[in-house]
């Protein structure tokens, strides 16, 4: 299999970037998309060129470190899938594949396809936790959580923090990411004590980081590898309004 990769190259955060084309042969349909890039990098090394920087770690769709824009879509052509789970069988022989980094004001490019997503960490830092020091917990079954509640919390908690929701949103909004964490914790009895504070602080930080507002286009839930529903955002907004106006 042979493809042409058109890849964004950018030396560092301050430098300008540009697309460069690479014709790559010797690929197979069973290769993952990232393995195809690995293959290209080996070719570049042997041609004495610096490798293309892109992110990955677990390569099984759970760590959230990988993520690039492929042919105009976050994580490539499929819905609800990470870049590392994408395989070359999803492309046709001879195809040109355009690869770009996430584009968002709050995710500055570091180099090539690598962006800085530390804004997500700072949102979590501002309330995305339950305050309970190690050693202070009561007996586990003393806190009952019904199956439906636990399942719903788990649906939201599944977020892998990849940033596809931001990258695909025309407003570069982090509403789905933020809502997922708020709803995970606020729907559980353990999270109730800090519920109002949490929703106010996390959403405040979200805006502080320069993410845009949500206009409910629904683009995010299509790309979210965990399929986290956009209804989470509505729920977050309701929780926020309640915390703000009713206290």
């Amino acid at each position: 299999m042979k493809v042409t990769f058109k890849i964004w190259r950018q030396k560092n955060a301050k430098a300008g970037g540009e697309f460069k084309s690479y014709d790559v042969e010797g690929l197979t349909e069973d290769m993952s998309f990232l393995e195809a890039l690995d293959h290209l990098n080996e070719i570049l090394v042997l041609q004495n060129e610096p490798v293309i920087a892109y992110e990955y770690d677990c390569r099984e769709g759970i760590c959230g470190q990988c993520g690039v824009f492929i042919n105009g879509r976050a994580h490539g052509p499929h819905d609800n899938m990470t870049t590392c789970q994408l395989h070359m069988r999803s492309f046709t022989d001879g195809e040109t594949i355009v690869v770009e980094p996430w584009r968002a004001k709050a995710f500055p490019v570091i180099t090539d396809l690598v962006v800085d997503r530390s804004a997500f960490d700072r949102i979590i830092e501002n309330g995305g936790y339950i305050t309970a020091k190690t050693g202070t917990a009561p007996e586990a079954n003393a806190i009952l959580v019904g199956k439906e509640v636990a399942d719903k919390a788990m649906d939201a908690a599944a977020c892998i923090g990849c940033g596809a929701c931001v990258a695909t949103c025309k407003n570069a909004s982090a509403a789905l990411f933020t809502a997922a964490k708020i709803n995970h914790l606020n729907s559980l009895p353990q999270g109730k004590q800090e519920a109002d504070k949490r929703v106010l602080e996390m959403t405040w930080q979200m805006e502080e980081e320069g993410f845009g507002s949500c206009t409910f286009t629904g683009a995010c839930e299509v790309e979210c590898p965990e399929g986290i529903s956009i209804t989470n955002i509505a729920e977050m907004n309701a929780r926020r309004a309640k915390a703000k106006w009713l206290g």
Partner: protein
Amino acid sequence: MLDSKIPEGPLENKWRNYQMKSQLINPANKKKLNIIVVGSGLAGAGAAATLAELGYDVQCFCYQDSARRAHSVAAQGGINAAKNYQHDGDSVWRMFHDTLKGGDFRSREANVYRLAELSAPLIDHYVQQGVPFAREYGGVLVNRSFGGVQVQRTFYARGQTGQQLLLAAYSQLYKMKRAKKVSMFARHEMLDLVVIDGKAKGIIARDLVTGQLKRFAADAVVLATGGYSRVFRLSTLAIGCNGSALWKAHKKGAYFAAPSFTQIHPTALPQTSEAQSKLTLMSESLRNDGRIWVPKKKGDARKANDIPEEERDYYLERRYPSFGNLAPRDIASRAAKERIDAGYGVGRLKNGVYLDFKHAMANFGMETIQDRYGNLFKMYNKITGVDAYKEPMQISPAAHFSMGGLWVDYELMTTVPGLYAIGECNFSDHGANRLGANSLLQASIDGYFVLPNTINNYLADALRENQPNTDHAAFELAENEVRRHIQKLLAVNGTQTIDHFHRELGKVMWQECAMSRNKEGLEKAIVQIQNIRTAFWNDVKVTGGFQEMNTELEKGLRMADFIELGLLMCTDALQRQESCGAHFREEYQTAEGEALRKDDDYSFVSAWAYDKGNFKLHKEILEFENVTPTVRSYK
């Protein structure tokens, strides 16, 4: 002489006795003490957060862009705890015994007992942190079984238990970061340990964005850097997982224990091509309901669903009737290898076995199976394009967990005073084979409960010493060594890529030092790896520069250490002339092909010291006062 510092008293009182006698530090003094934690998985994040809560000044490092990426995130199936919620005869003692036996009696009784003892409060902790564990309709916690045990003691959050526990630890950590009790250094990789007057006093790290080398001083250094099975190249681990921090510590004096004890996981997806970079794991929990089989006919070309029931060989159920598909991992992997090698493998490359849910779906209905394993089936479909609700999965053994690691005493301190190793990077509780769902457990127990209650016993004395300072000559020396090492690698300018050498090393390690080992093969492997090392340093090519983000350079530095680590692993496997757990020496097996342990000669932990490129063996004799080591039988 290795002093494991096991406390006095009966097994069930040892931890309490230890805590009563260990030195304490008053809260005002704790903030004067700095602790470096390298790694941010369950062990590292749990330790860093808890130490910060206790009042210490903590610096935490990870090579990823955020602590939330650490590979604990990928553990699927669950975490064990002796809660006995299922009323099925579980207890701390039984969990202790299962773990010790599962490890084929090659771990320390006192450590294993403590692991079981602290498992129950750990579940309490995670529930309080908001981990959405699976629940019954009435609201209580659910359990399931894992390999090697006959009770239900595994807690889980769908097939994403590791993710949920890690996110809890990560958010607890970043809460402390916001409180300015933890300084977080993401995208930083430790490249050397700094030892002053025989004590660990800091690290040299490379900022992976700027390429700059930086010095960090501390009163104690904690390594929580995970496993090193990427030495096989193809493994279930994250691509960035590496053994470099351990290897640098080993070279600076920390003994490396049981380096060759590697768990080969029975249920990963089979390799499909040479270009493959990793083997995706399918959770062991699938063996609760899935049945493993191969065709009875050699090289049967029919599709799985076309092979009638009577022509299927459910070999685990046949060989191990009492544990069946839930036999421990080492046994299940070896049994798969035996069938594949004998020519019964399935799939395009004949390198897999079937994992079939047909019966489970007939018994419980598709909805139940979907509820239990939905995300795993989805993942399987994404990777292979196959619908496992309609035809069986194909699975194959893959390099997974490192039971081996830095040797630690009861306090989790290595042989370098002030240097601790926690989680997968130490050798402690799992012996020669780890039981499923004990990995998240051990990482968490080490990080949250043990280390924060042992490090004080060392740091109480550190208060009277000079504050560590990065201007010290030892930092200068270490930084210069690291710089020279990097420059040397960049200067080779040969003709082969790093991945080329990694593939070569991986092949040797998988062939000779994985599921089945023998003297001749290991001796050959040592020579082959020495040759790979020579070729690497003469012919590798690393492009890009030093003072910039250079992912190829990162890979190259890890690779250089993997080669040396591979040598030690083969040396260790060669030295141990017995079979135990995952270490199966072909010369030592029973007539039925089961592992033959030799307790008279090998009831010890092999702890290797580094001496200018040579390895010297030290032994920690294992004494069993509470349990009599028996022949491990799952028949």
